[in-house]
């Protein structure tokens, strides 16, 4: 059943995206910040924006850019799920939410005060926590584990963002059909 849910639930039914490489060169430095090689050419995107529709009709919008955040003490990621009666906000100092670094979830209903919701993680947090869960899930044949087949689906989505123009400085792409991506 879980497998069916994973495989048949729609992701985005339609999207438009923009990948842009705005820093054509970046200095490579050592861990202590000393120059190793200046102005190394780069042909991968450092700005990513996607908007689209989920199968439910919900609107998705996403903007990711390279580099540090404005305020070093602020989260690097803010994810809001906005509902008809309330809103969820997820933040973390690490945009890789699966690394479980100080991820905070708050819910606000109507005009009420935001309420912190504890993540049901049995106290296991940090970058190793979900790697452990992957090993445990694989051992227990839990079908949530991503297989190579699932990876291909993910690769396929990325390929559609590139639209056959990998390495170009600006790539607009769109997929407006009914097919899930």
């Amino acid at each position, binding site marked *: 059943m879980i497998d069916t*849910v994973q495989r048949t639930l729609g*992701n*985005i039914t339609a999207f438009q995206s923009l990948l842009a490489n705005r820093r054509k060169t*970046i200095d*490579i*430095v050592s861990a202590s910040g000393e120059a190793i090689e200046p102005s*190394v050419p780069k042909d*991968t*995107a450092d700005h990513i924006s996607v908007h689209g529709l989920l*199968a*439910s009709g*919900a*609107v*998705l*919008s*996403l903007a*990711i*850019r*390279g*580099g540090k*955040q*404005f305020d070093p003490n602020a989260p*690097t*990621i803010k*994810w809001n*799920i*906005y*509902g008809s009666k309330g*809103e*969820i906000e997820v933040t973390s100092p*690490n*945009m890789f*939410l*699966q690394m479980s670094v100080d991820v905070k*979830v708050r819910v606000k209903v109507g005009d009420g005060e935001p309420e912190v919701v504890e*993540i*049901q993680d049995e106290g296991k947090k940090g*970058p*190793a926590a*979900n*790697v*452990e*869960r*992957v*090993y445990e899930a*694989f051992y227990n044949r839990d079908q*949530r*584990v991503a*297989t*190579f*087949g*699932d*990876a*291909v689906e*993910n*690769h*396929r989505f*990325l*390929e559609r963002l590139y639209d056959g123009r*990998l390495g170009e400085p600006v790539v607009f792409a769109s997929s407006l059909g009914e097919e899930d991506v």
Partner: protein
Amino acid sequence: MTDSPRIRLGFLGLSARQPAAWAAYTHLPYLLSHSGQAKYEIVALCNSSLSSAAAARSAHNLPASTKLYSSATDVANDPDVDMVVVSVNVAQHYALIKPALEAGKMAFVEWPLGANLAQAEELAKLAEEKGVRTVVGLQGRVDPLIDTLRGIIEGGRIGEVLSSNVVAATTQMGEKEMEALRYFFDSGSGGSLVSIHLGHCKLHFGWGKWVGLTERQ
């Protein structure tokens, strides 16, 4: 599952380097824990050279019986290895895991699986032909955050989901970058903010499937 045999691992990409790289930092704590050792056993290390494999074995206090390899084919063909784990930069994933699949071994590869779609498709097809179980390091799939969010949404607290909005700064690929991420500069390597940063978080932002957004209507 207590009577299941332990899965014997050949591990590619464990280094002695400090500060600890991904494999040492995130895979080892579990694999060397009590519950990890009940289910898995690292029986072999494979690095770019035998000396770096030996250095890793020693740095992480692995038993002297842990075999050392410098060839992905040799470790894949070791009859004591049930599963091969590849935790190195994506540009090398394809070449390092293919011998394991050919040998009929289970495979764990970090995300992205391949440097491009064609590599990933070929590996997935080979795994299917050989009937081997595979896993890709997309840990978002088992992240309890998803269940927590799902619980809030399915509990009806925020009503119907109208939209989902993400704004993020990656930290990486700003004004300066570290040597270890040089491969992010080359779209041919398969490593980039698109493949790795967006590729991982696509699961979270759900684009619906994991937060139940698509089930509600």
